[in-house]
């Protein structure tokens, strides 16, 4: 009897997917938490954990931001048949670090008659919005800062907070170009936010939850872009267009159209304050791309094809974090491709595209998805 139980248990251990145990970050974080709790009091444990998480998230933010600026310049160079940055370090990979150091040592010019308080507040808002959105993103199995039950809604809400920073920056600069850029950016971001929300609702219907970890877990046997028939694919395309517009990137970069508005809302920012806006733009791109990867492309879930067990096992060997980063960078690469392919839109074309095409299509798309879920036609 006892032997039976032991063999049953060990069988269970063997049959449990060992790779999930190996790649599960929650056991690592739990052991760190227990270790800290054993050596010091509760209060100091919390303080230490806060410092560890804070430093990690800061490092992650800085590395991703700097890498994305470099990647954009390289991708742009390849698309225009140039070399791009190639002087500092191998293939120029330290170019952005050099740029950052240079910007740190550049004087921050206070503008005459500018609204000083709001002028200085704006970089804080755009950067904090990025940090807070990072809190809800599942990076890998168990590597999840805060697993909120309203994750999708939270990310939309927080990432659109950045528009306040952009508006404040343009308003307080005492520069007409900045003001025009900020107002354009406001109109654009609020318009396209609707499409982002509705495209995500399409997936929430399919998943039946707004919790990002549940959404990822529901894609174990197939990513939502494949599971959800045509509506999910349409939603993905709409999400890509709308999120490109929401992050103020080309071809929707009217807010900083350099041929007409010098640099739009951050014309008057110099030195490191300008760098904050630049960094925030790339971090917003990373955040929307990682939400696209999480919600449509399965997040950290490996690519599985139903009955092909051998193939699935090979895919399981690749760590979840690699899957997550790979998918995110695929979406980011798509967005860069858009930017360097299409010419900039006019404001009337931009608003027509949203209100006359994307929004009605999106509303119908949500209904079709609801009907498919109702009939059980999804995979």
């Amino acid at each position, binding site marked *: 009897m006892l032997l039976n139980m032991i063999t049953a248990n060990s069988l269970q251990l063997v049959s449990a997917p060992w790779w999930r145990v190996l790649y599960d970050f929650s056991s690592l974080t739990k052991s760190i938490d227990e270790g800290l709790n054993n050596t010091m009091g509760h209060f100091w444990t919390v303080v230490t954990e806060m410092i560890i998480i*804070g430093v990690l*998230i*800061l490092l992650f933010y800085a590395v991703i931001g700097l890498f994305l600026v470099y990647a954009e310049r390289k991708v742009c160079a390849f698309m225009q048949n140039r070399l791009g940055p190639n002087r500092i370090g191998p293939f120029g990979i330290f170019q952005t670090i050099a740029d950052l150091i240079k910007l*740190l040592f550049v*004087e*921050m*010019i206070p*503008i*005459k*008659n*500018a609204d000083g308080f709001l002028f200085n507040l704006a970089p*804080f808002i755009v*950067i904090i919005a990025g*940090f807070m959105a*990072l*809190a809800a993103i599942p990076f890998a199995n168990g590597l999840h*800062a*805060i697993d*909120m039950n309203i994750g999708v*809604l939270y990310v939309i809400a927080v990432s659109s907070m950045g528009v306040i920073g952009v508006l404040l920056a343009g*308003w307080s*600069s*005492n*520069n*007409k170009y900045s*003001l025009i850029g900020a*107002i354009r950016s*406001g*109109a654009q971001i*609020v318009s396209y*936010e*609707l499409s982002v*929300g*509705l495209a995500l*609702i399409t997936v*929430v*219907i399919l998943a*039946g939850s*707004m919790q990002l970890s549940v959404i990822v877990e529901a894609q174990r046997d197939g990513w939502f872009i494949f599971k959800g028939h045509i509506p999910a694919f349409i939603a993905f395309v709409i999400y890509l267009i709308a999120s490109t517009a929401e992050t103020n990137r080309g071809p929707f970069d009217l807010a900083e159209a350099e041929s007409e508005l*010098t640099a739009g809302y951050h*014309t*008057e920012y110099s*030195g*490191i304050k300008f760098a*904050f806006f630049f960094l925030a733009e790339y971090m917003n791109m990373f955040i929307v791309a990682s939400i696209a990867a999480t919600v449509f492309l399965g997040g950290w879930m490996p690519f599985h094809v139903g009955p092909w067990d051998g193939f699935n096992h090979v895919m399981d060997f690749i760590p979840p974090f690699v899957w997550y980063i790979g998918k995110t960078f695929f979406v980011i690469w798509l967005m860069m491709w858009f930017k360097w392919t299409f010419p900039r839109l006019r*404001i*009337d074309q931009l*608003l*027509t595209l949203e*209100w*006359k095409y994307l*929004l*009605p299509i999106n*509303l119908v798309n*949500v*209904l079709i998805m*609801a*009907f498919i*879920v*109702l009939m059980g036609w999804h995979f």
Partner: protein
Amino acid sequence: MSNEWLILFFLVGAIFVGAVLIFSGIVAPKSTNPQKFEPYECGIPTEGVTWLQFNVGYYLFAILFLVFDVETVLVFPWAVVMKEVGMAAFIEILIFFFILGLGLLYAWKKHALIWE
């Protein structure tokens, strides 16, 4: 982790920006020159006030956005329970989207969506 940890992310962002600004303020050189503090517009002195009136079209879109954004917030809880409730939820959202579509159609016919 529980949701209270969000304050940590807020603090990390604020401290990051604040510390870098202070550092840059210490190491960056300073020089004064009356022309340097002028707003950057075409290189010539600026004329008139900056905070001008702008196109009323932006307000129209802002109002439309408010309507549809509130709608999005209302649809999110519906989307979560859609699978469980089934047919009733589908009919309800049909009616809801019909009314909403009428609103969009009204704005469209009133030329609120045309940029002038």
